[in-house]
């Protein structure tokens, strides 16, 4: 399975200076992918010569005006002096021809010259282009008309030259703008980083540091910066001074902000809600979490999918085929009806076959889709990943860390004697306070006391069993740990707690006992929690008619319980090899399967599946090699991504179908001589616009606010508080 290369790869593809699409070869500066981008850059970019830009615009306006007049003049010629049978009509015809010639010259000069220079530049690079064919046609039509005008007989085709030049220029320009719009979503991500930074500079050691406003790109590792309330953190860093709450929703999906104090790490692009911070940069701006994400999307955009390769192959053979068809058309009509027909019809063939729509069809849709997905917190590794994700029919989920939060929480607390309840909790808090074990953390969270805790001494942790410590002034140990620890140390377990332990095996929960002085006093029941949005995930995936199952290494009893809870099959007690085998079997039956995991212990399964989806890549997307990385731990991003990729792929198919059909039919019509070149030029612009508009719609369908999607899940969690009690009975 090909994956995108490392984002920090120095051999980066050359990008068009205007629309940022990758350009093959060519390393000169600035690089444009087409004459449209060159024109658009000249017109709209502030960089470069202002005068030249105005000259271009004036040229386009004047050409438009003259072209309109030429169209009217030639139409008047056809309408009123087509077959001049009176002296007046003949004089009128002559007059109209000459005026049309005069009006055509500025158009040729203004718009023909850039087209010609583009064509010749490509020719110098040994590339034959449709521009060259078009230019030949325009020049030939103009030349023929000039001869007709001077001789006073014969048809004129000034309007053909003018309309083609205007439409080709405007059409190319529109395409360039469309491509620029396609990368809008990515620019929106980049704009999360402020452009300027308040850097703290200390001129001498005694003086207090003062602030200097510098551009973001000047920030180096170790620089100190000031980040005020409601400003965005410019780079990844650590807090040196001050406290604040930071909105990290883009990375973590947490809708409530995180509290930061000195020593906390900050991510570039997050929002400082209320504090005044001094931050030390730990990464250069482009290599922070956000920078790496943007870079990864860029990389993905140059990784070509199946459809893109198809379009590429077609484009490569396109030019020779069209040249041959145009030549054939010219020869056939030339021998049948004359040089005029040969010229017009072959020109129409070139125009209608101009592969703009075909060349745009896939990259534009992929480009728009990847950018939009990144904004929604989904990183797709290229067009191929997008295509494969769209074709997925089965979904396999890992349990721990994927469906569940990965950290257990206390569901129930029992005391042998209610009188000792406070003492039990106090001791539990003291013993768990310094431990990093997930059970300890859960218990510490559960106790939630702010009272000063008794100091403990002589702390010994017993691997796989628990922790033992002494409180000051006591001769006996206080124990916190598993039933086995208590059995080994021969502590008595009272009837109330024994009954609870008896029930425990059935309910598939973990239990932690606490006791001292020879007797167990309290019991914590811990359970791994499903993510609040898990049920909605199942519902939404069912709507996508996906075959779902959970693969877990957990005990069968817990698996059965999970199955009852979420209503999809759970295959339990699977070793990592078994997970691989399950996916391999599924793939052997022809099912396209996506595997969702946290990317740490199930990486092989992710790699084996048709599409691997890694959860919570958040701060470092380069760490994962999965096809799809979810920036946030938001399960709902999975059905969204699958639905979105299906939309995107159907957009690509529509685009390809439309451009193939259009080019195919158009060429046949034009070769038969049933299409006027001016109409062919208009159709060419229309078809490009269709493809552009269709692709850009993807950006709209991707606009879902993550906040809105999170809120119902949180509420759902709040309305289901009593699950554990009910299940316990």
């Amino acid at each position, binding site marked *: 399975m090909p994956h995108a290369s490392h984002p920090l790869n120095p051999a980066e593809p050359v990008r068009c200076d205007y629309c940022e699409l990758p350009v093959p070869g060519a390393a000169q500066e600035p690089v444009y992918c087409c004459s449209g981008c060159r024109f658009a850059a000249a017109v709209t970019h502030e960089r470069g010569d202002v005068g030249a830009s105005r000259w271009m*615009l004036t040229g386009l*306006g004047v050409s438009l005006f003259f072209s309109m007049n030429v169209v009217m003049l030639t139409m008047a010629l056809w309408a009123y002096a087509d077959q001049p049978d009176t002296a007046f009509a003949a004089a009128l015809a002559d007059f109209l021809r000459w005026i049309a010639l005069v009006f055509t010259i500025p158009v040729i000069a203004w718009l023909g010259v850039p087209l010609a220079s583009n064509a010749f530049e490509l020719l110098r690079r040994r590339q034959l282009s449709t521009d060259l064919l078009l230019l030949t046609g325009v020049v030939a039509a103009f030349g023929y008309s000039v001869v007709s005008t001077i001789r006073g007989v014969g048809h004129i085709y000034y309007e053909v030259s003018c309309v083609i030049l205007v439409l080709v220029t405007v059409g190319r320009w529109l395409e360039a703008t469309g491509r620029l719009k396609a990368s809008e979503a990515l620019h929106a991500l980049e704009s999360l980083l402020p452009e300027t930074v308040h850097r703290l500079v200390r001129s001498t050691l005694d003086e207090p540091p003062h602030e200097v406003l510098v551009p973001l790109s000047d920030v180096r590792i170790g620089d100190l910066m000031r980040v005020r309330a409601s400003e965005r953190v410019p780079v990844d860093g650590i807090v040196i001074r001050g406290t604040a709450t930071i909105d990290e929703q883009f990375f973590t999906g947490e809708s409530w902000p995180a509290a930061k104090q000195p020593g906390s790490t900050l991510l570039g692009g997050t929002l400082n809600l209320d504090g005044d911070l001094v931050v030390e940069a730990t990464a250069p701006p482009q290599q922070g979490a956000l920078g790496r994400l943007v870079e990864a999307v860029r990389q993905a955009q140059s990784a070509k999918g199946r459809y893109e390769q198809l379009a590429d192959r077609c484009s490569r053979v396109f030019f020779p085929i069209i040249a041959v068809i145009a030549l054939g058309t010219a020869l056939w009509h030339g021998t049948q009806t004359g040089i005029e027909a040969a010229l017009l019809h072959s020109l129409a063939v070139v125009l209608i076959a101009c592969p703009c729509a075909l060349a745009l069809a896939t990259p534009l849709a992929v480009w728009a889709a990847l950018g939009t997905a990144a904004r929604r917190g989904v990183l797709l590794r290229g067009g191929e990943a997008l295509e494969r994700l769209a074709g997925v029919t089965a979904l396999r989920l890992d349990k721990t860390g994927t469906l569940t939060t990965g950290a257990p929480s206390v569901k129930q607390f029992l005391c042998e004697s209610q009188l000792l309840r406070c003492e039990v909790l106090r001791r539990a808090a003291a013993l768990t306070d310094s431990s990093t074990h997930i059970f300890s953390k859960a218990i510490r969270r559960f106790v939630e006391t702010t009272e000063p805790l008794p100091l403990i001494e002589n702390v010994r942790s017993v691997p796989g069993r628990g922790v033992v410590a002494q409180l000051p002034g006591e001769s006996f140990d206080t124990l916190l740990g598993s039933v086995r620890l208590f059995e080994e140390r021969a502590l008595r377990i009272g009837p109330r707690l024994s009954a609870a332990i008896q029930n425990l095996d059935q309910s598939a929960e973990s239990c932690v006992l606490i006791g001292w002085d020879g007797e167990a006093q309290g019991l914590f029941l811990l359970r791994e929690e499903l993510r609040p949005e898990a049920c909605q995930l199942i519902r939404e995936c069912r709507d996508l008619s996906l075959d779902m199952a959970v693969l877990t290494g957990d005990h069968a009893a817990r698996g059965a319980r999970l199955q009852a809870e979420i209503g999809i099959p759970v295959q339990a007690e699977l070793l990592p090899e078994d997970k691989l085998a399950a996916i391999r079997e599924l793939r052997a039956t022809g099912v396209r399967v996506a595997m969702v995991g946290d990317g740490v212990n199930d990486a092989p399964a992710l790699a084996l599946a048709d599409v691997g989806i890694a959860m919570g890549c958040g701060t470092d997307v380069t760490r994962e090699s999965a096809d799809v990385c979810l920036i946030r731990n938001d399960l709902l991003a999975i059905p969204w991504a699958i639905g979105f990729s299906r939309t995107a792929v159907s957009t690509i198919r529509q685009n390809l179908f439309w451009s193939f059909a259009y080019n195919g039919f158009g060429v046949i019509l034009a070769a038969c001589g049933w299409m006027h070149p001016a109409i062919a030029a208009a159709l060419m612009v229309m078809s490009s616009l269709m493809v552009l508009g269709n692709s850009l719609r993807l950006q709209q369908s991707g606009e879902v606010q993550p906040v809105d999607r999170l809120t119902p899940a949180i509420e759902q969690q709040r309305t289901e508080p009593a699950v554990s009690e009910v299940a316990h009975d």
Partner: protein
Amino acid sequence: MIEFPLILLGGLLGSSHCVGMCGGFAMIVGMNKPTFRENLFAQLSYSAGRLVTYCTLGAVCGYAGLRMVKAAPQLLNIPAALCLLAGMLLVVEGLFATGLIKRRGISMAPQVGCMMSPLFATMLKLPGLQNAFSAGLLTGLLPCGLLYAFLSLAASTGDLLRGMAVMLVFGLGTVPLMVATGAGAMLLKIATRQRLMKAAAWCVVLTGLLTVYRGAAFLQAANSPTAHPTTAPACPFCAATDSAPVITK
């Protein structure tokens, strides 16, 4: 042709629709003009640009109508069909404007429009009358239901110059209010404007109904062999007074 005053009125009053759609462009054109005089010239160039586009489109449609009349077999009454089409478009567009019927959202149009915007915006903001004129030329090409309705009316004339005349008259009708808007002199109060808008909408509907009626008259004329419409006079301008289509031999 009986509709010319009505077309002018349709343009004049329908320009409250134009002000709604394209008035913003006119204002941008006028934005960084220091004096009223300069602004007025810029506005006039802008409107002149629109007029040129309208005339060209009118001429093209008129010519297309002529070609259709020539190309279509006798049994298909092209002028009548075009008249009926134009009339119906005008009625529908008018009813949209009155607010009696609601428009369905068209997903594609705004995006395509947006792609034009960088070019367009640059042109609008640049100083120089020629750029205001170019912006006007482009404005005339923006998709607009009212414009299309009048263009099909132009096509139904079946003559290049008459098609052009229809669009010229329509365009002239839109000039006063657009220039006034752009020149920053919105003399009319909002209430008055709303009343004008309503009146304009009904004016468009009325033009449409008359056009439909004309189409029906063509159909009838073609069906009764005794009352065959006479051939039009040679001069296309004089033909403007005649309500019959140009029948070319």
